């Protein structure tokens, strides 16, 4: 532990260097997800107030690329696929409508790495 210089302001380091610290890359990813989630939550609060306060689950579109077989079945040339730069997160907010009883309300909002809402879907 560094000793504090006489007369200096500020705190000395109390957390040991390189111990009990989350790796920066995980910190950065968590921050991106949190920022994207805030964007999604604002959209959901604006469109479906009944879902305000619902904690969403997150899925990662960029981690599920289509297989060559699926592309072939769809008749899609891989070159046709629109490439999104970076991560794309889908936040699913699951709840119920105020009325009538039993009416589901689930909204899925997809946010890209630039914090743009690229898709939204809602239960029919």
């Amino acid at each position: 532990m560094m000793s504090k210089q006489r007369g200096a302001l500020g705190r000395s380091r109390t957390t040991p260097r390189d111990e009990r610290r989350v790796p920066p890359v995980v910190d950065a990813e968590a921050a991106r997800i949190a920022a994207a989630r805030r964007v999604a939550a604002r959209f959901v609060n604006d469109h479906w107030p009944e879902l305000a306060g619902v904690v969403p689950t997150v899925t990662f579109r960029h981690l599920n690329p289509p297989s060559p077989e699926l592309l072939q079945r769809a008749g899609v040339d891989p070159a046709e696929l629109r490439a999104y730069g970076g991560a794309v997160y889908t936040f699913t907010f699951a709840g119920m409508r105020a009325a009538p009883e039993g009416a589901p309300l689930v909204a899925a909002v997809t946010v890209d790495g630039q914090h743009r809402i690229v898709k939204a879907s809602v239960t029919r």
Partner: protein
Amino acid sequence: MHLALAPRRRLAALAGSAAPELLAALDAALAARAAAGIASLAYDPEVGVPALGLPPAPLEPAALISQVKAADRALAACGEAVESLWIVGGPRALPFAGLPNPMPDRDGPLRTDAPYGLAGPDELIPRWPVGRTPDADPPVPGLLAALLRAVAAAHVRAPRCSTGGVVALGAARWAAVTAEVLANAGPALVLSSPPIRSGSAELGSLAGARVVYCNLHGVRGRDAWFGQAPGDSELVPALHPADLAGLRLDGAVVITQACFGARLAAVEDQLPLAVTLLRAGATALFGAIGLTYGAPELPPGESDLLAAALLSALRRPGVRLGEALLMAQISVLRTALRRQGALDPDEVKTLLGFMLYGDPALSLEGSE
């Protein structure tokens, strides 16, 4: 070769004293298929097909799927291919298969016929189209026999008797999306809910429609489908089984995006809308048993895309019902991949969850 899974022994047991009538209706439907030139192999899964080396299978999904795979291999060895699979009976006779729910929406496992076409999480598009002529759950006396007689009549009639166009009933909240879905559907009468509500005289327009398209809400435990005003969260009943009393929808194809739209279980002691529509003469119904998804605003997404592609496919002269669904599923897949580069869980659920109630080998006249 068009396969037909007809669990005769189970159907007879469920029908009780009405078994002779039911089996006669089944035989008539199969005969009508043959007369229409549809090469069919109908068998009771509990008996198997000894000529093809297919052993008997219990009426549970995993065994039935294995048996269908074996049938596919056996037919391939003879230079044939499975072109469609028709399931006769409700879930008490031959159960829906179950798949993991791709959406984190608390809807439970996906109940669907897709795996009988060998579709699943790893192969989203079935190898062959699947359709089911269902019974209610629990079975209703005389219902399945009536639906099978309708299937026979549809094959004999060949084209639809209906000369109507498309009648669309949609939540006002999604008016723009509904309009876009209908863009390539041909002439359409659009009823928005509200102001249309259950009991409205305008619902009489459903009679004689070629296609009935519903972009409405479904509610668990309620027997109606609901509309919604723009900017208003309240749902209003738009279509109730009682609205179909006295209406005939002979030859109509129904496409419903409503959550639980294809549910077969009675609700509030009332037959669900899917069953009521079929009993009113609808030739087919496309829908899902669980939660469904669509876009809140333009552009259309998920089940909107499926409905749009179905509406387009059903216009093709001579298209078979099962082919129309397959074409629509491929269209949804292609559109989603080109838009996004990958599929989201709501698209996967749309592809695997939407089913056909009807004979997949039935050809329609189309309207092009």
